[in-house]
């Protein structure tokens, strides 16, 4: 269990939302080409899923869901929170889909995303302009003509394809 100490620290200190956002010391380094607030895939594969498999703590899915919500509501950097949490939701659904269709991620917990849907739906409406002007992470000019907005809409579309919540009205998608 030593490998899960980082996550356990976050849980024990009620800082799971900081883990979600990759706030040091909860930033998980990974071999990737792109700078991200949190390396979601690595954080999920190395901590979230192994912790779940090791403990099957029935309260964990709720903690996880609450942490996603807290990340959105408590982080002063709204763009960062929206972008990071959507990345988490997409990767979780990507893994959940794999667990349903293949031998990968067996027994992955299911997550109630209803409250998050309402929260992010509103937030995306309010932040559209600010997201379009934000060229951090996937919003870099080489990757997007309109800042974080395009990557976020792509994430939202992918989430819908994975039978996840709808975060954007059709009119907002490029």
């Amino acid at each position, binding site marked *: 269990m030593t490998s899960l*100490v980082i996550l356990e620290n976050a849980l024990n200190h009620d800082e799971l939302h900081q883990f979600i956002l990759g706030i040091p010391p909860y930033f998980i380094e*990974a071999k990737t080409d*792109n700078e991200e607030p949190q390396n979601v895939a690595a954080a999920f594969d190395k901590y979230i899923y192994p912790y779940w498999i090791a403990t099957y703590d029935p309260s964990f899915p709720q903690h996880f869901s609450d942490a996603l919500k807290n990340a959105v509501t408590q982080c002063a950097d709204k763009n960062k929170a929206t972008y990071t949490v959507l990345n988490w939701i997409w990767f979780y659904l990507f893994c959940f889909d794999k667990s349903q269709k293949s031998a990968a991620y067996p027994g992955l917990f299911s997550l109630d995303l209803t409250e998050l849907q309402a929260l992010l739906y509103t937030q995306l409406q309010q932040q559209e302009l600010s997201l379009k002007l934000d060229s951090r992470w996937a919003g870099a000019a080489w990757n997007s003509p309109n800042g974080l907005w395009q990557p976020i809409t792509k994430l939202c579309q992918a989430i819908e394809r994975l039978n996840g919540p709808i975060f954007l009205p059709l009119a907002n998608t490029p």
Partner: protein
Amino acid sequence: MQNIFIFPDGRKFALCYAQNALGAAQRQDTPLRSPQDIDQLMAYLGGAKLAGIWQDYYVNQARIKIAASTTPLSEISLRIKTDLWQGNLYFIPRDDPEDKPENIDEAIRTARTNLQMHLRAIIQAEQKEKAALEQEYKKLNMAEKAAVSAGAAMTGLGKAGKDFLIWADNIVDVVDINRRAVRVVTAAKKTYWEQNKKTWGQNLAEAEYKELIEALGFDPAKITRAQITEALELAQLIWDDAETRNLLKLFAIDYAKAQHHTEWTETAGSLGFEIILTLILAALTGGAAGVAAAAKNMLLIGKLEKAGQALLTIGKKLKNLKVRAKRKLISVKNSLTSSGPPPKSKHDTVDEVMHKASEKPNPLVPETPPVSKPQYLPGRNESDILAMPKGSRPDPKTYLEQKYIDSHLQGFQQEGGGFLFTGDDIGNPSYQSFNPKKFVMRGDDLSAVIDEYKKTGDVSILETALGYDPGSLAGKDIYMVKLKDPKVVMPTGNEGGANSLWRPGGLTDPGGKREAVLDNISINHNNDINKMMTDFGAERIQ
């Protein structure tokens, strides 16, 4: 019946008894290779342990009819010695689960996180103190402020913080001594099994210990020679661990900034080794008992001690890894020279293997063409560049020899370049293309790694050579793209893909493979592996 014995080099062995003698083969991975080794082992075990072995393996198990608790020690000793040599009684390596390499790696990572948390706590506390001092400063009248500027005030917590840096800086004065001691200690340890070990113990440390504690200002009564020796050894191991080293260097800089003594910032970046040594000594001596009393930083020492404990864990685990690496070399050597005569001692074996490993191809390491070390301009070095935060690192032309850069990049024109990626890497809908400043490996280096992987099917070869975490490529679809004459530039360390493993000079760490970054070249994958295969000739290798 099994008992665990910890040998002087820290390795653990289980003692077993075989009804039928197993011969010399059972001595292969133990220090028992010659009659002299057996003699040394007998001396190490001593009367009490031999009596215990006799009781456990002979009397209680009724191995031989004559076995009795009252048997004289000389007979016990002779019988055990004979059985050890004949292979009736034999040692087998015994690892605790926590000593498995993957678990050691995890433990090191965890300890690094703990260290980071403790260091963060120190910085936060210092920032809080700095804010409090600034509040006090604002309340002062003009004359008092002038006195502060002259250095007459602002003592207390702020001074304690500054003292820590001054003290660490003082250690620089003796760092050469440290290094010399480390070298001597390392050399002396190799002679552990030889007759002069006591001479080393008596002669070496007396002088070094005295000089070091005098220079550092320790109270000799509060710190032992063994603690100094252990601290130096662990500090050197940690210093060689780039990730931890960088973490501490950045801490030194943050710490200096938190003191509001900005002139320290520059100096602090070079205090890596000294800070490691400070923290380890703080942990080994129980903080205030040893270091703080002389080092003037009483107020800090409690916090430093916690960070030191995390650092100690890292050092000890790194030591475990080192022992394992040596053991692995021994087994490689055995496979290369199985018919040769037994070496004289365990440490002879290690040295011989290390020597042979450089002469013969090592089956564990893919063969690659020779790689030259980065050549720095006078006055510049790796540490300077790594101490700079990502985003502010300079153009490599400002610190590397131009001919080294030219030769490095020319290699990519001649040999091409390439990279590996997983199906998941191109699955993220946020990105439709690879980063135009993507890291690529030189073609021949990549081919050598892939060839080796294909021979063995061991995905850890790819993980090690390419700097992935152990286990992170297991079960993933892995693809390779090769680029002919790619337009590349020297990595600056500011790229999105530059993480804490990045080193200036265009060599991967670990692995030492040649790397460069694409010069704003877009490789569009559209989240579709078929597109990568069609447009860029991606080849599936797992």
